[in-house]
């Protein structure tokens, strides 16, 4: 408890910004907490962190923390992040996005950020729904579930965000649930330390919108569901795709070395100077 109080005082804009806007029991706070704990353990200075978000319930998180914080437009957070990182590479740039933010309206930016490999960490709040706008389906709403814009049932198929990031070229990709907060802390820490474009897909619950329409119970019920349906990636490798149907594969999906955009561009700068003189 003492530890928590210390972190609150150190990192939250506690005198300015509370009470917060999230619904009681929302999983989003756990992700923000995990980020703060990871940053504290690594020992980054607050001045060197830029925390950027798009629009959505997830987008409202940065305002509470005492970093350089930037709340952009829906889906575009990664583009702002790219500009900041390239203009000032010494900054540590972290992006929060919702599932709709990252893979619907911002889907193009997401795959290109992964391909380009600018050194930015993207943390995605996957709650399978558009929370902020009141429960419309998102690109990660599973087939057959309900949403305010899928009142009968949902007839599209969901993106697997982490797998998408792997295919698009991210150097580090992991997935974790908010239920396993300790695991999430560790995963985010690894992602922040990794040079290049890293992605952490966090499975979180929106009991108020998604849970309610689909009768999934309380926040606690949804957390238990996360616990009971998670399979670590090492174990998942031994299972068939039928056995993995509807399960959450957690852990580090990829951790690889690829050329980093800023380093490549530094070489372009050197070459341009050589030619110029």
């Amino acid at each position, binding site marked *: 408890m003492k530890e928590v109080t210390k972190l609150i005082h150190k990192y939250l804009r506690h005198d300015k910004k509370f009470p917060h806007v999230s619904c009681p029991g929302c999983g989003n706070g756990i992700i923000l907490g995990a980020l703060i704990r990871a940053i504290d353990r690594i020992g980054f200075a607050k001045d*060197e962190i830029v925390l950027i978000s798009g629009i959505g319930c997830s987008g409202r998180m940065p305002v509470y923390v005492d970093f350089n914080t930037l709340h952009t437009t829906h889906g575009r957070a990664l583009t702002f992040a790219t500009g900041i990182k390239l203009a000032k590479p010494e900054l540590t740039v972290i992006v929060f996005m919702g599932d709709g933010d990252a893979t619907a309206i911002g889907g193009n930016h997401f795959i290109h950020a992964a391909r380009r490999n600018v050194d930015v960490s993207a943390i995605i709040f996957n709650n399978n729904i558009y929370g902020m706008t009141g429960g419309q389906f998102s690109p990660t709403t599973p087939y057959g579930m309900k949403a305010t814009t899928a009142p009968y049932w949902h007839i599209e198929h969901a993106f697997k965000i982490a797998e998408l990031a792997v295919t698009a070229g991210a150097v580090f990709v992991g997935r974790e649930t908010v239920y396993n907060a300790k695991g999430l802390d560790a995963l985010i820490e690894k992602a922040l330390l990794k040079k290049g474009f890293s992605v952490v897909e966090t499975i979180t619950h929106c009991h108020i919108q998604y849970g309610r329409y689909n009768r999934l119970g309380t926040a606690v019920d949804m957390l238990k569901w996360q616990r009971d349906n998670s399979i670590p990636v090492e174990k998942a490798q031994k299972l068939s795709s039928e056995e993995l149907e509807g399960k959450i594969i957690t852990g580090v999906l990829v951790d690889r070395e690829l050329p980093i955009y800023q380093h490549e561009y530094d070489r372009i700068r050197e070459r341009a100077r050589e030619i110029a003189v």
Partner: protein
Amino acid sequence: MGAERRELLMQGNEAVAEGALAAGCRFFAGYPITPSTEIAEYLSVKLPHLGGTFIQMEDELASMGAVIGASLAGVKAMTATSGPGFSLMQENIGFACEAEVPCVVVNVMRGGPSTGLPTFPAQGDVMQARWGTHGDHPIIVLSAASVPECFSLTVRAFNLSERYRTPIILLLDEVVAHMREKITMPPAEELEIFNRVTPTVPPEWYIPYADTPSGVPPMAPFGEGYRYHVTGLTHDIRGFPTARDDEIGPFIKRLFRKISQNFPDIHMSQTFRTEDAEITVIAYGCVARSAKRAVVEARDRGLKAGLLKLMTVWPFDRSAVEQAARRSKVVLVPEMNMGQISREVKRVNNGVSTVETLNKVDGTLITPGEILEKITEVLS
């Protein structure tokens, strides 16, 4: 080296790129589109050599986002595009207005709507430049009519964006962007360059969106000790979202005031033989070139014509237009659109003189002959 003037033959788009570099621009993000692409290509060669950054993004939404990001990190930044791309940039241009992030957007106008006429000139985006992004906001829009102006107005665009913490739109058209003309490059030390005002108070005293006499709060770059919040939501003076009417109103009004109380600095126009003009042609961009020629020829024929060339299109230069209207019996507004600035001229003129229009939307330039014909017709 030293204060030497270089005379060069240069293309309008290249002059924009040179102007940007001279103004201190060190970041460009863009997406290729005719007829603006040469700006990107030119800067992709020059920026890395100066330690700057050129990046081709995945689309124009991304380009605008990256430009705003770079500017927040303290680097002067720009993008360049044409109609379709300009449409895609609108949401983030609004973000730059709301969050007061300096940046420059060049729109080389081509025929529209939609994909329209990629390689033909037009002036159809004048109203879009003013009102393209949603919500009530002021904006500064400049228009260049020659290669030397492409250079000087790009420098000016950066200076205005830095001074007023606002996005600046620079309108070119396909003719001005692609033509080659002589340009005399001023030596660097003769250029007046303005850099944004940064806070001098310690971080704990910094109020990022405080009102000031100029209406422009000092801007701290990210990462230098001034940790604060930037958002596209309507915010209080600390940058935090607000729903209080006593904070919302003053904020929006300050955005307008920082521009409106500085009209004399922002408005740029030129007059040519207007002293005794019975007809004043009001024009901007490539049409202003034809208009000048038409005025010269009209004078040769003994017709008392003059020209008011607008270089600042928005905020509208009411006083310059009112003067022209008061002096002449007739005001003629030739435009390569169905009448965008002429509406504004009529509004400002308010019946004082007759407002004639000359509109062309077939992808070709309005010629001096066409303007001369109209002048002759109107005065006889």
